[in-house]
């Protein structure tokens, strides 16, 4: 299962990570977020040890969501070396997400 991350933990878990991080920005009442969640879980398994995968509830953690200009949900963002390097918006197929991630490994 993909670990949740909060506003408070974001710097330590995401920005200070030694490996690239995929962050799933989601909200409880967002339909497509439910569709993308299992895809994100599969990616977490497939890239175990190479990519850290976490999810952030934007309702409960508005500070980080606002800081990175999240509008449409779900948004999947990739961080490397403390910087946002890419993002994918909406419920995308696993292949799209995997090929985006591959660029940063």
């Amino acid at each position: 299962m993909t670990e949740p991350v909060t506003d408070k933990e974001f710097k330590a878990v995401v920005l200070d990570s030694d490996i690239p991080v995929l962050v799933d920005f989601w909200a409880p009442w967002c339909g497509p977020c439910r569709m993308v969640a299992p895809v994100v879980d599969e990616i977490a398994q497939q890239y175990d040890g190479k990519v850290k995968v976490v999810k952030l509830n934007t309702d409960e953690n508005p500070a980080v969501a606002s800081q990175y200009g999240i509008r449409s949900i779900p948004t999947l963002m990739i961080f490397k070396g403390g910087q946002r390097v890419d993002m994918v918006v909406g419920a995308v197929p696993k292949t799209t997400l995997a090929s985006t991630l591959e660029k940063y490994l």
Partner: protein
Amino acid sequence: MTSTNDQPQNGTKTLEAMKSFSETYAKRTDTYFCVDPSVTAVVIEGLARHKDELGSPLCPCRHYEDKEAEVKAAYWNCPCVPMRERKECHCMLFITPDNDFAGDQQDITMDELIKARESLS
């Protein structure tokens, strides 16, 4: 229609209103609900919550800096401007038939909606 604050979240009146709106609007625009009815149910519940909390069914698939200001701006009140102008619903409530995720339904049961509400409360 005016909403009052004496309707708690566990009431189903707003949920029924949003169900009825969604079904009517899908038929009117020739769009369909998602093949996975739990997706549809979650979005309708999200709309009902915003309607109860804010007075308008603000899109539940967006992050807002200020929900009250967004309600006044009206752009993302369902049906939002992109849906009305181009049939674009990124929340996947109203899906055009050419989309792989489109099912063949324009109706949803109250049971499905209650199930989604209970799964997330």
